[in-house]
């Protein structure tokens, strides 16, 4: 089973800064980590490969330094890694990013399965996984919390939703996005880490993947960020309640009532 896992290097949330000109996240100076959800995507890919054979390719788009995250994927056991990197990819929104990744997937010879993390923790959009599926014309399964059983042609899996879950069976090839619950990602071994250090990571440009230049980058992206500011700060005037449990409870319930936050007063609070 040939599996491509799409991963993203993301800045540490605590160091997020915005370029005042482009309104995009400055990725060059912030400490970067592998998007946490992608670890689960990699682990699931490796588990399926261990069962069926084949290979796991880690694929990313980003600046040169995103190679560090691809090396992390290699150290976990991915067979090879590929980076899409070029100025002309810069500023791509989720439409253009999923287009570029879908072209790279085709250029790599396709796959039986593409796995993504549920979302990246910088943009928080969850749009690239389904976007890739749409560009490829493949089925998709999002918010996958468990692979119930896997065959070579069909995978039975469990998808989360607001009320519980459903179980569906999807024919390969398809794209799935996974949540944290799905597995426990392995820790890279020393041997794996050493192997990853020496491996070459090819860098592909638009021409290498047959991407049309008018479908990538900032210019081709339907959405434009026009403003990015820190949110209004929370009212930090904390009301501290101390004393016996009974006193605390009485004061809290009185406070909730005063704010119109008790269930019976819902309508009053909302309208």
């Amino acid at each position: 089973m040939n599996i491509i896992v799409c991963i993203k290097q993301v800045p540490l949330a605590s160091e997020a800064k915005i370029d005042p000109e482009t309104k995009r996240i400055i990725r060059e100076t912030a400490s970067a980590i592998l998007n946490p959800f992608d670890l689960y995507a990699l682990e699931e890919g490796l588990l399926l490969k261990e069962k069926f054979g084949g290979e796991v390719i880690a694929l990313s788009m980003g600046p040169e330094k995103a190679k560090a995250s691809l090396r992390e994927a290699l150290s976990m056991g991915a067979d090879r890694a590929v980076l899409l990197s070029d100025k002309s990819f810069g500023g791509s929104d989720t439409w253009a990013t999923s287009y570029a990744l879908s072209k790279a997937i085709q250029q790599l010879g396709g796959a039986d399965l593409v796995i993504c993390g549920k979302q990246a923790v910088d943009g928080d959009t969850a749009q690239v996984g389904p976007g890739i599926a749409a560009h490829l014309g493949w089925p998709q399964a999002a918010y996958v919390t468990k692979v119930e059983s896997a065959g070579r042609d069909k995978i039975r899996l469990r998808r989360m939703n607001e009320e519980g879950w459903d179980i569906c069976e999807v024919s390969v090839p398809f794209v799935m996005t996974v949540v944290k619950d799905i597995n426990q990602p392995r820790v890279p071994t020393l041997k794996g880490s050493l192997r990853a250090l020496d491996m070459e990571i090819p860098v592909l440009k638009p021409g290498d993947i047959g991407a049309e230049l008018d479908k990538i980058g900032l210019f081709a992206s339907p959405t434009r960020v026009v403003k990015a500011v820190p949110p209004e700060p929370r009212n930090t005037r904390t009301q501290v309640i101390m004393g016996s449990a009974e006193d605390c409870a009485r004061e809290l319930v009185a406070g909730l009532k005063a704010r119109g936050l008790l269930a019976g007063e819902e309508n009053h609070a909302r309208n």
Partner: protein
Amino acid sequence: MRVIDQGDRDTFSNVWVVAEALSGRVQPVTHELLGAARALADARKSKVWAVVIGHGLSEDARSLFACGADTVILADDDRLSGFRDEAEAAILSRLIRAYRPEIILGAATARGRALIPRVAVLTVSGLTADCTGLAIDPENGDLLQTRPAFGGNIMATIRCPDHRPQMSTIRPHVMKAPLPQPGRGGEVIRAEVLDSDFINAKEIIQAVHGAEEEVNLSEARVIVAGGRGVGGPKGFELLRGLAHALGGAVGASRSAVDAGWISYAHQVGQTGQTVQTDVYIACGISGQIQHLVGMQSCETIIAIDTNPDTPMMQIADIAIVGDLFKVVPAIIRELEKNT
């Protein structure tokens, strides 16, 4: 669809709401989206349409007129009783090409966040996820979409200047549902469902409701959440009692989930769910940044902890310094007294 000039842009009109259907019902978030759509349609002097895709939903679909829909499109087929991403996306994309809406609002739920991105790619349009604010730019009529990124550390305003329709997803409880106007009616358009919409084989085997009622974090108005301080599964039983008394859901920090005290469906934070409730009661949660980014947009935050100096106690609107095992039962008793 890319638009070249104003004349082209003007061929798109009306605001569409993609109804959220789950377990055979149109979900309440749909009414909230209709409220937001009405304001946008008024600003654009256009109409509100609702699109309902599923099976056995015609009664629920008709009820959307009372919530402000002028026209309802209904795609009904028994193959659509489960969530078939590919088929729903194909149907919706076909309707968009035929009727050319200017704006589309969908729910930022598991279904909406899987379906709408697929439609945005198929129709070559821009999509902004999890919008918390929508407005019409008075200068050019574009939709200005505001959303949190980086777990709420940044508010970004996004526009989609050269593509139509402009698409947004919105979380439950962010917009206000309008007061229903009984007796309000409108036209129902039956949409065609084609066999070819189902070419990509996906079979829904089984749909399961969560065993516990307290799990629906996105629909809840009140969340009672526990962290390491809760001490174990027994502690969460206590929180369930409080959640029940408040008509709310139970949330958890990552460490409580990783310890196996409660299932992942309850996890709030960066690798769990982002929630935006009226009330968030954090019990024994220290408040690591990864947790805070998932709940800091809640309206009123209440923290209960023996340590008054944790980050959670610092950001809380109300901080109760005390032993949660004593305070929580006392709150439950106090609430019972008040009802």
